[in-house]
């Protein structure tokens, strides 16, 4: 039997059973070729993602033997686990016993394990995959001797390099070690990937070049659960359960110096369905009272059906939150109070409704200041942002740019009909939303050229006028384009802002 994956020209053999290997099936060979040789071959599709997920799971399971476990991803399709068992062998009665224990434990899972204990990652890899026995323990002194009879493929080299070495007549590690080192380095100086560089791989296997083992960090879930004696369907008992769950969860988070950014409350119904509600915070928090308020008004959206029998609360998004000291008055700081407010507003009104102004480097008014959701922290190119602190100082002069900005912007700018004395002059009267305004005073034009690096070539310039009508109301109008700029017909007028 073989497992097939999609290759460049149709399916290729991903892996094969031991019997198939014995018959002569090779990895990477085409399935059609193998079928021609062995008509009885049974082909199943390989599921590489599931394999990778299984390996990741096993990585955590292998922590029973040592704390540092890494999923081996050096070569395609070759899955393995690397364990750094330094100092943990004696817990199992010595390293050979431990190796036996590993084989037994994997056998209990229905898996065949080939185990090798060696001083380096490279030598253990070689002995586990290409060594003669299923399990072996190789002391530091014997590494070179143990590796010598193995083929060069045992050095974690890719297929091309292996072929190249074979053509050069270097078929075993011993042969490779016999070649003068300087010659090898010169021959493979172009090799960039470690798997194409036999010198590096040999050094790694022999331990002359260090190769650290990077253990995957175990991300424990922060979750609390309540199994309920009686199924509940009303909001009120759900709120009680939520309070319990929050206490649990916040305790878990506090132990690990974490704060929740996203919470998911899920109710498991009697009929097998799941109904969940999620809330998010703008800043990591493990304050049960605050988090509970975020759920206010959201619990009604849970659909209990015939009732929930189990409820879980999980922090799906987390962030480090070191324990903070209260100030002398026993209060939390102001910034925290503000972020709590934003959280509450976002929980009820939605993320898009609560926004803050972000100043950007542009002259076009609607682009110079944009509103972004207040719950996200702004991280962008600083060069394109004007530092907000610099502005109040700059605007003390009465002729500054901010003087000309209106208090309110209409978005988008609205069409107005305008009567003017001269085509390029200020408006004399205008009509906006079916009402006439007679312009008494006006100031302008303040010209803003189009941003040619962003806009189409047909974009027209804007001439802004601040006008005041008979009653003293102020408006901010602009004329788009000039009569003879050759970018369309007669210029149109827009109202863009209102002012106090």
């Amino acid at each position: 039997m073989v497992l097939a994956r999609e290759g460049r020209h149709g399916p290729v053999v991903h892996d094969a059973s031991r019997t198939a290997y014995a018959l002569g099936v090779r990895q990477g060979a085409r399935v059609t070729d193998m079928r021609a040789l062995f008509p009885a071959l049974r082909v199943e599709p390989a599921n590489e993602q599931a394999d990778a997920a299984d390996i990741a799971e096993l990585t955590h399971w292998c922590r029973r033997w040592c704390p540092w476990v890494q999923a081996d991803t050096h070569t395609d399709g070759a899955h393995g686990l690397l364990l750094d068992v330094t100092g943990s062998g004696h817990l199992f009665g010595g390293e050979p016993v431990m190796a036996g224990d590993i084989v037994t434990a994997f056998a209990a899972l229905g898996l065949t394990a080939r185990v090798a204990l060696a001083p380096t990652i490279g030598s253990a890899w070689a002995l586990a995959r290409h060594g003669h026995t299923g399990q072996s323990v190789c002391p530091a002194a014997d590494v070179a001797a143990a590796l010598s009879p193995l083929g060069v493929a045992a050095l974690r080299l890719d297929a091309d390099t292996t072929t190249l070495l074979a053509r050069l007549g270097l078929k075993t590690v011993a042969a490779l070690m016999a070649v003068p080192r300087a010659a090898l380095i010169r021959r493979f100086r172009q090799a960039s990937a470690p798997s194409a560089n036999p010198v590096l791989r040999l050094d790694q296997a022999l331990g002359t070049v260090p190769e650290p083992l990077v253990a995957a960090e175990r991300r424990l879930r922060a979750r609390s659960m309540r199994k309920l004696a009686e199924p509940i369907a009303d909001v009120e008992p759900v709120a009680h359960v939520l309070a319990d769950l929050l206490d649990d969860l916040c305790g878990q988070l506090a132990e690990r110096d974490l704060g929740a950014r996203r919470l998911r409350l899920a109710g498991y119904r009697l009929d097998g369905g799941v109904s969940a509600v999620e809330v998010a915070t703008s800043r990591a928090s493990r304050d049960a009272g605050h988090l509970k308020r975020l759920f206010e008004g959201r619990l009604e959206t849970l659909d209990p059906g015939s009732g929930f029998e189990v409820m879980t609360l999980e922090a799906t998004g987390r962030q480090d939150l070191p324990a903070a000291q209260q100030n002398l008055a026993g209060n939390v700081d102001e910034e925290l109070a503000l972020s709590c407010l934003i959280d509450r507003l976002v929980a009820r009104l939605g993320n898009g409704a609560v926004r803050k102004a972000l100043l950007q480097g542009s002259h076009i008014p609607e682009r110079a200041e944009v509103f972004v959701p207040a719950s996200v922290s702004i991280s962008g190119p600083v060069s394109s942002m004007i530092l907000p602190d610099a502005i109040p100082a700059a605007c003390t002069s009465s002729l500054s740019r901010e003087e000309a900005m209106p208090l309110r912007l209409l978005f988008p700018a609205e069409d107005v009909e305008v009567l003017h004395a001269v085509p390029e002059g200020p408006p004399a009267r205008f009509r906006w939303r079916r009402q006439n305004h007679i312009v008494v005073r006006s100031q302008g034009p303040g010209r803003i050229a189009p941003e040619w690096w962003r806009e189409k070539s047909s974009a027209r310039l804007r001439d802004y006028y601040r006008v005041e009508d008979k009653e003293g109301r102020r408006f901010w109008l602009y004329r788009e384009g000039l009569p003879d700029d050759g970018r369309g017909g007669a210029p149109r007028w827009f109202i863009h802002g209102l002012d106090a």
Partner: protein
Amino acid sequence: MDENRQSPDLSLVHDLPVHGLPVHDNGSAMRIEAGEAAPDMVFLPRPTTLVELFAGARDMSAIGFALAQVPRHGSVLWVQDRMSSLEAGYPHGRAITRFGGNPAQLIHVGARNCADALWTMEEGLRCRSLSCVIGEIWGDPRALDFTATKRLAMRAEQQGTPAFLIRFGAAANLSAARQRWRIASLPSVPHPYDDRAPGPPCWQAELFRARGLKPGTWMVHYDRTAHRLDFSAAIPDPAVVEAQRHRSSSGG
């Protein structure tokens, strides 16, 4: 006015009101002494309660009037219901710097309806770290009744945070706001350099209902350097106007 343009008289901008005195910051004395010793004395402390401002649909004078009373430092929560943002536009942070504000400390909330806007204002007034809450409601929605304003007023007083409820195109129904103003634009003060340009704004403020204050009508200017409102008599004394005109023409 031609001579005026040649040598602009800057004193005109801030020196206009002879009647009336600036709004003071000390919150203890909360009274109006009108018609007493020579000038009208207006002591208007910075509000720490709910102030309701009525304005016309296209008239942003109420916004300026509110911003002039917002403390200079601290975050501002600005709530708009959907209609007011559609009809009267969005607040523009960079212009707020004109009133001593900082756009980085502005939190804008676009509420779908009046009920959400009122809820947001109330939540904001519950938060200690805001220096001011500004709410805009368009027209006369049913959700904005006496109870709603009473809640806002009490929350604002409890927290000591000023709250401005700006009502565009609304009728002055029953309300528990501690100060109720009707604000309208007036033709602006002449521009110091350009007599055809709109100058510093000038508003007419009518206080028609207040607790502890005497109702009245004033002409109001914003004094930017001191960040305060200058109140002067709505109908200026002809002698004062004459004196000013004389001074401005002789200044050239």
